[in-house]
């Protein structure tokens, strides 16, 4: 209990430090709009990839439909904040987005989570396409042109704070009875069932949880970028999030952070290289997949509790 408290205090310190550093850099004029854009993109990508990692890395279900749930959150915010352009309206729209995404995830998940591997990937991809095409053809979403002039209700600080909150919530879920049940499904579905774990229920729980975080990411995307169109949420968007998860390490939230930051920075630095950028970017991916197929961090997690424990043990020796 005491070590848990200590570790939590350290994590809180890290989060506050991160905020202060960015704030100081902003104040000192080191952060231009270009860099800020990069930081916010990283933050949103962390939120999206953490949710997807819960589905892929922890429950072991392969989903390719993450951008679909992101679109639901983005359009909820885009539509609602155009009539209620206040911070309250923004948070309300986020909650509506989460709610709709959960319902969509239940509708998609209940029939498709019986499928495995490739079939599930194709089914979720199809579901995301259905969402995108619906948005493309509805009047309220302004069709293929999308929504623009969405009120700027999310600053980098909003994104940072919500990123911290979703990460805490996700990690807390993983380290609980439910999280362990979800991981047992990934490890061995037959054994999990034999131990009394209702595998369908826990797979669905992870899928719905992931969809909800995708909606949060979408909401922030809409409120920060201020322009959204259906084509922003196509299959390539889902794959971009998948790359972060796979690169960082399937089953490692720390890895997701590292990959989101590395890819975000790489993307920004390589802007100067023009078309060469795509070659260098894909080369980096291929090299990592060859030399570290489990992703940068595998399923390793940074844990201050463990670090502290090691320190105490070595102090006693």
């Amino acid at each position: 209990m005491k070590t848990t408290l200590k570790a939590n205090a350290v994590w809180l310190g890290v989060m506050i430090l991160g905020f202060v550093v960015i704030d100081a850099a902003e104040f000192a004029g080191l952060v231009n709009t270009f860099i800020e854009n990069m930081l916010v993109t990283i933050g949103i990508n962390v939120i999206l990839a953490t949710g997807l990692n819960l589905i892929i890395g922890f429950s072991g279900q392969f989903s390719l439909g993450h951008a679909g749930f992101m679109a639901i959150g983005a359009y909820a915010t885009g539509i609602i904040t155009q009539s209620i352009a206040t911070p309250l309206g923004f948070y309300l729209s986020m909650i509506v987005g989460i709610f709709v995404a959960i319902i969509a995830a239940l509708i998609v998940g209940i029939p498709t989570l019986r499928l495995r591997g490739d079939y599930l990937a194709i089914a979720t991809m199809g579901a995301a396409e259905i969402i995108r095409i619906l948005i493309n053809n509805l009047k309220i979403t302004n069709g293929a042109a999308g929504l623009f002039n969405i009120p700027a209700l999310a600053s980098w600080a909003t994104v940072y704070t919500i990123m911290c909150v979703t990460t805490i919530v996700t990690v807390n879920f993983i380290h609980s009875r439910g999280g362990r049940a979800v991981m047992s499904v990934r490890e061995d579905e037959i054994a999990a069932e034999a131990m009394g774990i209702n595998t369908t229920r826990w797979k669905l729980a992870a899928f719905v949880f992931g969809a909800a975080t995708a909606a949060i990411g979408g909401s922030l995307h809409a409120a920060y970028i201020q322009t959204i169109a259906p084509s922003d949420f196509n299959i390539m968007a889902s794959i971009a999030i998948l790359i972060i998860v796979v690169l960082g390490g399937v089953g490692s939230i720390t890895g997701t952070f590292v990959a989101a930051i590395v890819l975000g920075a790489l993307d920004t630095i390589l802007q100067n290289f023009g078309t060469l950028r795509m070659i260098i970017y894909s080369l980096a991916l291929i090299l990592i997949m060859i030399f570290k197929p489990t992703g940068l961090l595998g399923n390793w997690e940074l844990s201050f509790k463990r670090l502290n424990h090691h320190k105490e043990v070595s102090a006693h020796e």
Partner: protein
Amino acid sequence: MSNRLLDAQHLVKNFGGLTAVSDVSVHFDQNELVGLIGPNGAGKTTLFNLLTGVTPISSGAITLATDQGVQTLNGQRPAQIAQAGLSRTFQNIRLFKDLTVLDNVRIAMTNHYHETFFGSIFRTPAFYRTEAAMTTAAQNLLGIFDLTTVADQPAKNLPYGIQRRLEIVRALATKPKLLFLDEPAAGMNPEETADLTRLIRQIQHDFHITIVLIEHDMSLVMTVVERLYVLEHGALLAAGTPAEIQKNPAVIKAYLGDETTC
């Protein structure tokens, strides 16, 4: 009859044209140690899979005596059957390999402890209390079976014999009424088998549960079980005490072949 725990009547399982189990009726009583033997391919593991719901039965009836009276297990999913009190180990070990020994046991306790979703994400005091209770219970169980020192190791790092033992401990963590052990001594040396024999007796004595085991190691089977079922070609060949089975001509024929043909 009064202490009948699990009753399976006329079980049949067809895989396409192949009848893996044909018209098998078995029953297990409270706190009994029963063996299930038979040549390879006799349908022993298939029978376990039918009883624990891993494969659905083609026809027949399975009923379990519970506190609320006799309950049918037909058509229930494996998780429901496990929750009703039937637990098992697997012939080819199925541990949660990347998870720690402690987590393997805690996962099996999932249905005995309740944490709300909001409690776990916001870390309420109730959450910490449940987690602590769960961890203590798991550690106690690991302590009984000498696994405390490896509690923080990933299951895949354990030696083979210990993995088998952990699988039994994990099955016990579900608080079963009936425990199915599928070839627990497979791949063990005589010393490990002797340890296992002690372990099985200890479990039956300390936990007051019914144990059913599939085993090829006759020294183990004949010393621990009270009653035996013999399967051959998916059908029940004989049933009785170890002494009766050893003298049964049909069983001797199934294992050693017919005298006249050789």
